[in-house]
């Protein structure tokens, strides 16, 4: 028993497999980013910057891995407060790009608080549920809901539909995993159904033009190839053109010739799919599923509520981002601007994702700690 405790505090096979998987996916991401942007001739090409972000992410990973997650969780509320302030600052002082104001400039870089808000929200909710027994639908649903709301509103105001949806998804998933009495679930469903028309009206009314157009374009991207459905159609063309074996590295004409916009960020999957084909896509999906499967093992063996909730939150966030990103590039969902975890270019997202994975591995590391 003591041996296992000692072993579990050091590296084991599981850790190697986990970290190995993460590194492989990161590598695929960097390769794809390199493929799209290598001919831009910038002094600091995107792939090099991405490697730098990964190095920073690795630091975050190690910090989150090696600290005690209980201590981290204790910082959840203050952290959430800080994030809310940053999200508010972004609205006033932020840098806009393509109609959205999401970034706080720090020197030559831009920091995206909404990415970190996701992780902080997971910490906050996990902390909330594990601190005391939460009984009754008020404590289980409404109070955490009120916790989520300010962050959600601030993010939607930017507007960042993708992060907002991730926020909601994390909340819903954690609610589901904490469990509700069937009665509470029924009440929520009923209310949701009743409120849906109003909510839809409010949603639609509050959306920015480009968001509405994106959703319209989702319905029929071929309707206006040069216009709003452009991204969706070009992305589908890129993926489809990959066929079984792909066009090979640098062979993706869709991305190389820039028909596919945002090939290094939100649409990096399309680039990969065009160059590596269905076989490559299958391999990538298997990598992601395996990573999540391993993560679920961590939840299954978690020894306390906090750890399990943290792990579940992180897994759900990852799953949501992977599924929605691939789904939107493949034309199954509207384009909502969610990056593909570990693959899309972006400092905030990369660092946040790697920090989350560090925290995940931390839960596994601590699972026997209280003996």
């Amino acid at each position, binding site marked *: 028993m003591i041996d296992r405790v000692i072993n579990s505090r050091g590296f084991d096979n599981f850790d190697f497999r986990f970290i190995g998987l993460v590194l492989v996916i990161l590598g695929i991401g960097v390769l794809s980013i390199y493929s799209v942007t290598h001919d831009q001739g910038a002094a600091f090409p995107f792939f090099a910057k991405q490697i730098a972000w990964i190095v920073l992410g690795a630091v975050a990973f190690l910090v989150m891995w090696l600290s005690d997650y209980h201590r981290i969780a204790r910082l959840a509320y203050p952290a959430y407060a800080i994030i809310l302030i940053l999200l508010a600052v972004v609205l006033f002082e932020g840098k806009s790009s393509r109609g959205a104001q999401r970034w706080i400039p720090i020197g030559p870089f831009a920091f995206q608080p909404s990415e970190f808000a996701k992780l902080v929200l997971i910490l906050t909710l996990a902390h909330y549920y594990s601190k005391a027994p939460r009984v009754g639908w008020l404590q289980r649903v409404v109070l955490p809901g009120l916790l989520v709301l300010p962050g959600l509103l601030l993010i939607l105001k930017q507007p960042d539909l993708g992060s907002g949806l991730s926020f909601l998804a994390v909340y819903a998933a954690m609610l589901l995993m904490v469990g509700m009495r069937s009665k509470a679930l029924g009440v929520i469903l009923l209310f949701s159904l009743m409120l849906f028309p109003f909510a839809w009206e409010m949603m639609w009314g509050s959306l920015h033009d480009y968001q509405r157009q994106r959703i319209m374009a989702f319905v029929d991207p071929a309707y206006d190839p040069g216009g709003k459905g452009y991204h969706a159609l070009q992305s589908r063309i890129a993926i489809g053109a990959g*066929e079984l074996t792909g066009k090979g590295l640098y062979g993706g004409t869709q991305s190389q010739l820039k*028909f596919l916009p945002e090939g290094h960020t939100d649409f990096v999957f399309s680039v990969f799919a065009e160059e590596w084909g269905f076989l490559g896509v299958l391999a990538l999906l298997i990598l992601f599923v395996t990573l999540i499967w391993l993560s679920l093992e961590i939840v299954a063996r978690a020894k306390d509520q906090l750890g399990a909730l943290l792990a579940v939150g992180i897994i759900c966030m990852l799953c949501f981002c992977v599924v929605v990103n691939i789904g939107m590039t493949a034309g199954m969902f509207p384009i909502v601007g969610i990056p593909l975890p570990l693959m899309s270019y972006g400092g905030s997202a990369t660092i946040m994702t790697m920090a989350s994975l560090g925290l995940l591995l931390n839960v596994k590391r601590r699972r026997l700690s209280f003996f």
Partner: protein
Amino acid sequence: MATTGLYDSELGELQRRLIILRVGLLLVVALLGVRLWHLQIREGPYYRDLSENNRTRSVIMEPARGLIYDRNGVLLANNVPSFTLYVSLEDVKDRDLLIDQLTNLLGLDPVLVRKKLTARGSKQLPRKVKDRLTLREATLVESHRLDLPGVMVQVESQRNYPGGVMASHLLGYVGEVSPEQLEKPEFADLHQGSIVGQYGVEKYFDRLVRGQAGQKSIEVDALGHEKRTVVVEQAHAGDNLYLTIDARLQKVAENLLGEESGAIVALDPRTGDVLAMASRPGFDPNVLSRELTPKQWAEIVQDEGRPLNNRASQGQYPPGSVFKVMMAAAALETNTITPSTSIHCNGGYQFGRRLYHDWKAGGHGSVDLRRALVQSCDVFFYTVGQRMGIETMASFAHQFGLGEETGIELPSERIGIVPSAAWKLKAKNEAWLPGETISASIGQGYVNVTPLQMASLIGTVANDGVTFRPRLVRAVMDRATGELQQRVAVPKRTLKLRPEILPLIKDALAGVVKEGTATRAKSALVTIAGKTGTAQTTALRTGPEKDIPKKFRDHAWFVAFAPVEAPTIAVAVLGEHMGHGGSASAPLAKELIETYVKLSQSLSPSVTDGTPASEGDAGGRGAR
């Protein structure tokens, strides 16, 4: 540590619920997999196709039109490089913005640009927005290239007419194919923006001269920037044309008319070759080949002088006394008269209650056919016409090529009118009046002819009754093979006349110049035969010619051939409202014929002499 253990039952519950996540994850990933399989495997080839098209843009390479030379190789129409602005619609993200930018940058008319960008047609093919950009404009566009996705500046060959207005009606001009034309089968292989001949030889021989467009497939990025050329299908230049006209003679003919309205046609009666065909006023085909604004176009169309009208083949005038040439042949052939039949002319011809005047108030006295032609006696031909009847006159007029197309290789030739009872019934729904036969017998009344028909008629007489279809193109050079193909002259018709008739008429026509109404055409250089004509334009004729306002004055005709012994040139001169044929038109014909004779004598045709200068020196030589 204590708190963590308190909710172990909840932790267990949570861990049991993981199955939801596992099943959900597998389900969703399976869905993704199916979707991707559908996209990449089932529809993969379709998307592969789309992606191939996505990266290539077809660019039409306009062919260079064939060059046009005169019979001696003097260049009449060539091509000069010019910048053309194209917009590739597929690469335009924001059309309104682009229109704004182009308007600001080049000062284009936004309405016009919008029309071009939204015109029907393939979205794949770039739209031509403006041609003949100046170097400055082209540079301006190129330097803003990054801000103007989809905008391309291509170097293309632009039609150029070095002679300016010279031979404008003959050469014609070019222009963009119109939407109506595009619907027709003969323009099937063209596209919006293609240049086709819209007038003259350019139009008639468009198929030869046009050439074949090539296509360049260029790989572009999403901003429309050319990355590299993938496939090139070369454009094939059009064939070169060698016209029958002599640029030097053409120039002289045009200068002879000067500022007057009118037409001069010179044919080689032995082949039908059109040696010169002048129509005044003219236009500058360089201007018309450019894109005109509706206002510019309206100005040209509404110009009182109707410069776009080719008076040689489209102007219709009463032939006046020139008609008597045909009348004489008809009268002899039908035995209405013999060469010695004498008719007394006292200055008028009474028919019913009306007196038909002779042009000479006192009359010509007793005249036979030769004298009637030489003096152009009206009463003689009133009598002959009255005896022959309108139907006989009409059938001979048709033999001489009147009332039908000469078959010249120019678009929209007019045929004139050869009146008859049937014609009048059909055209006016009225019965033929006997008095109208009398007017018709001196080429007045309903009779209408074109100067080209008159030239052909006198050429037929000169050529002893054999009519050649007037032709404009001597040879065609295939640009691809460099092969020069001569076109042979084909006789069109031979007059059915007894052999002694035409020599009699030719002799009389020689007399017209020697001693008759056209002594002003008498030349020391060459023997000329001819016939004057004065076509009345209005019945209101009072007082001497010079007091009548110009627009009511008569048209002055003169037809001629030379040398009388072995004719090599037949000429028809029509001066609108220039008065008497003998005084106004005969000297012009004489000068033209003399020029021709001199040119034929100089064995090496001087190219520089004939090279037309730019427009503006018209009217250098006096018209009269």
